[in-house]
């Protein structure tokens, strides 16, 4: 891409006392794209995003947002940002509409309150006190306020946590609509499905560093596909083939595993070719491959595989898929 990135970060560090939560992160976000920041709890996602939002100064490296230092030159950029924090509150005694009008009054370019509440499906709740809203409704009000200023750069920190599946999909559609209209988004999320659905690019953080980044296809493409089946003979009895009995598979990774129920699992980097070989092998021996399941890797698999192989694995790690 030729244009200067909207977010340009090099070697960013953030230290709390002796603990360094962000340890040299590089990240570029270009106009109109959505970059998803993934990572386990404690990986440093929120600490890092706060640097880009300009809520805290970096203890090292450079952070530029729209060409400015977002912390020291916050006045210059804040009107172009929309920020949905993981934890920001409301005054429970104000109604939804009053809360939205107050926020609109503090923005330089607010969109009409009714439109914004409509976009997140809160029109019918406009006159309800915020204290009476459900968790999911509060999250949608959060989203409404973050998008109200028609931001160039939108930060979404766990935007769909606590939402039911339908509201989650509606949120995704809203975000997709904003992307189509040219908004740039930096998303942090626990939900890999959300990143797969929305993200142009993904950056995975671990222990304060970006350990992998690229498009969903890049990250998933490097991960082997899976094939699973139970082998049965002509009489229908399960057969557990030894490794030597299987045909030679060109893309196979590791040794095939057999679980207690006799189900055989293997991983391959050549799904089409190896599946063809397996089917021919079964045909020739009059074997049935029951419950055959062959699938390309998902982002979740890639994420979990990466997590397993990493020594700096956080003990509090928790990934909701």
């Amino acid at each position, binding site marked *: 891409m030729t244009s200067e990135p909207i977010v340009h970060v090099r070697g960013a560090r953030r230290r709390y006392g002796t603990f360094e939560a962000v340890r040299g992160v590089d990240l570029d976000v270009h106009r109109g794209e959505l970059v998803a920041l993934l990572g386990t709890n404690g990986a440093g996602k929120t600490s890092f995003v706060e640097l880009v939002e300009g809520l805290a100064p970096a203890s090292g490296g450079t952070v530029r947002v729209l060409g400015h230092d977002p912390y020291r030159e916050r006045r210059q950029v804040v009107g172009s940002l929309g920020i949905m*924090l993981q934890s*920001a509150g409301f005054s429970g005694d104000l109604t939804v509409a009053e809360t939205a009008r107050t926020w609109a*009054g*503090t923005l330089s370019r607010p969109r009409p309150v009714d439109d914004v509440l409509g976009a997140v499906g809160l029109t019918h709740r406009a006159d309800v006190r915020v204290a009476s809203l459900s968790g999911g409704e509060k999250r949608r009000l959060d989203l409404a306020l973050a998008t109200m200023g028609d931001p160039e750069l939108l930060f979404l920190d766990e935007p769909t946590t606590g939402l039911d599946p339908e509201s989650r999909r509606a949120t995704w559609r809203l975000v997709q609509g904003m992307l189509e209209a040219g*908004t740039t988004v930096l998303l942090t999320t626990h939900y890999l499905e959300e990143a797969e659905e929305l993200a142009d690019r993904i950056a995975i953080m671990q222990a304060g560093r970006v350990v992998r980044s690229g498009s969903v296809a890049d990250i998933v493409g490097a991960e082997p596909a899976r094939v699973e089946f139970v082998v049965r003979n002509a009489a229908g009895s399960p057969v557990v083939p030894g490794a030597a009995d299987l045909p030679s598979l060109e893309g196979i990774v590791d040794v095939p595993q057999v679980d207690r129920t006799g189900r055989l699992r293997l991983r391959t980097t050549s799904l089409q070719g190896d599946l063809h070989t397996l089917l021919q092998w079964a045909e020739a021996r009059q074997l049935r491959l029951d419950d055959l399941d062959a699938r390309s890797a998902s982002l979740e698999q890639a994420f979990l595989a990466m997590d397993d192989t990493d020594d700096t694995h956080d003990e509090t790690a928790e990934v909701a898929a």
Partner: protein
Amino acid sequence: MTTTTPTRNPSASGRAAGRGGSAAPGLRRIAALARSELLLLVRNRTALVNALLLPPATVGLFSAINGGGDDASAAAGPLLVNVLTIMALAMVVYYNLTVAYVARREELVLKRYLVGESSRSEILAGAAVPAFVVALAQTALGIVAVSVLFEAPPFTNPLLMVIAVVGGTVMLTALAAATSGLSRTVESAQLTTFPLLIVALPFAGLLGSGTGDGVAGVLGTIGTFTPLRPITDLMTLGMTGIDRDGRLLTTFGETVAAGRLSVLVLLAWTAIGVLAARRFMRWEPRR
């Protein structure tokens, strides 16, 4: 939930225009924040009673104790105005605002405002506007009431009265911000506001000016430098022309000269309040 998507103005350069230097956007933001704080005040019965009834009730009590007899002198009216102003500033501005800042912080509303376009001082000012309006209205109504019921004071220097109320509000807003940082919960704000109220109120000059020799004189001198005292001194001087030593001044110029020390004390406490607010004010709950 609908899938209506916003249409945004693609001209990125256009959005930066019209913002920045001018004070008007700041005032607009303060007005928006003040409006919501006013709604919250109206919906919080404790704070509302504190704001609207406590100061006039104190005045009623004060005048009942003070005799209700033949002492309806020229000094009685201004004293009652002072009681009203001091109670309004102490309870509505200082106490209620401390509680409001703690409440907004604990419900993570301050944190939300911080990520928006408002500056820290705009956020603090927005919350303070309703308290200021209530205190100002009570003082104004008190002056009208006293002028009708008693002999109207000469109002030698109304400017000093304005300085007293506005300056007192700014000082107590800063002190409220600082105090809120030392209060973990709304309930504990009752304790953290206690020192200023209990130490400063007796020295505020409502119980006599403390002139003369001996202990009273020493206490009077100390009292001059306590935070609420310059407010009563300036109000008295502005309303009646009577200075801290009990001399009657009749010209505007004389009262300006006589009010200088009080203005300095007020400014000093405001500076202390601002420094303390910078040091102690917290914008999100302790974790």
